[in-house]
């Protein structure tokens, strides 16, 4: 027999899966970098509107989130389908927003207390009535910096 004869018989060699972990790790790292940990589960529908003239909120520790929207399907039986305010994992009345902001502000370090921003994450189907009431509450506690959180995109898409 020749020197270069194959050792094996005609069996198909096994497909190497060695690169599979690499691919999965790549995906994993992608998700690790672009996502952040969930700190509260959202119980309201929260499709944000689009806007183009947006500014990025940079420091997470200076933001207080207020969610507004109609409750998701699981909660509609109990809370109805009208837009509600969600503060920290539970539904709240509009009148509680002021107290919540004050409580959150007190938790932050002294030097940050004057630079806090309230991020309003409002569902695009919500009415302005509830937003106006929230804005009044914010003015009462002197939390004047607000950010209407939006997606980046053509604003006219909101109207369709």
């Amino acid at each position, binding site marked *: 027999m020749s020197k270069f004869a194959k050792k094996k018989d005609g069996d198909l060699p096994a497909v190497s899966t060695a690169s599979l972990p690499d691919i999965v790790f790549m995906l994993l790292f992608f*998700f690790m970098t672009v996502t952040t940990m969930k700190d509260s589960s959202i119980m309201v529908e929260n499709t944000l509107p689009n806007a183009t003239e947006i500014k990025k909120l940079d420091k997470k520790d200076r933001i207080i989130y207020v969610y507004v929207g109609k409750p998701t399907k699981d909660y509609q039986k109990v809370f109805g389908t009208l837009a509600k305010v969600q503060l920290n994992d539970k539904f709240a009345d509009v009148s509680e927003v002021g107290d919540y902001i004050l409580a959150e502000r007190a938790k932050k370090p002294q030097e940050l207390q004057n630079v806090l921003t309230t991020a309003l994450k409002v569902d695009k189907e919500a009415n302005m009535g509830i937003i106006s009431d929230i804005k009044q509450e914010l003015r*009462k506690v002197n939390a004047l910096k607000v950010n209407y959180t939006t997606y980046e995109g053509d604003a006219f898409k909101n109207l369709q």
Partner: protein
Amino acid sequence: MPRRGGAPEVNAGSMADIAFLLLIFFLVTTTIETDAGLDRMLPPMEPPEDNVVIKQKNIFTVNINRNGQLLVEDELTDITKLKDKAIAFLDNGGDGTCTYCKGKNDPDSSDNPDKAIISLKNDRETKYSTYITVQNELVAAYNDLRDREAQRLYKRDFTDMEAEYLNSETPKSVKEALKEKVERIQKLFPQKLSEAETSTSN
């Protein structure tokens, strides 16, 4: 006895499983955050001490009704035209004191960008998305004018400079230099957007 076939191959098949486990964990516990939006300042609760008299021609009124229709300066207007109307109003320079304005100098419109005020009013039944679109268009009007001036003075867009100035990763020395420029442009077209209390029409 010496080995013949080199080092034995390590079976890496389970590594993929482990990586998938980690991946799925991250998929369920994290969200893609949207941390951008329209920044606005609310007016303080206490009213100003002395009553300021503002001429009617210096106020650009925008009313949104419950059906999402716009009444701009008592004229029914399509939302796509709002930005151009706002720019024309702000850039008017009616009393001739504004040297950088390129508007029509219409005596019936605003005197000076410094005096021009946009007043936005909405109904309680107005949809939030409509409100955001209007806000976006008004801010866009200011940004367009500011960009124009920034291009003229510094050959750079204002929005670009502001984003760099607000970015926390920008070095301090760059920030100092930018601050002056940003404030100068902001002074040329100060953002005066007042929001009246929501009307409760039936």
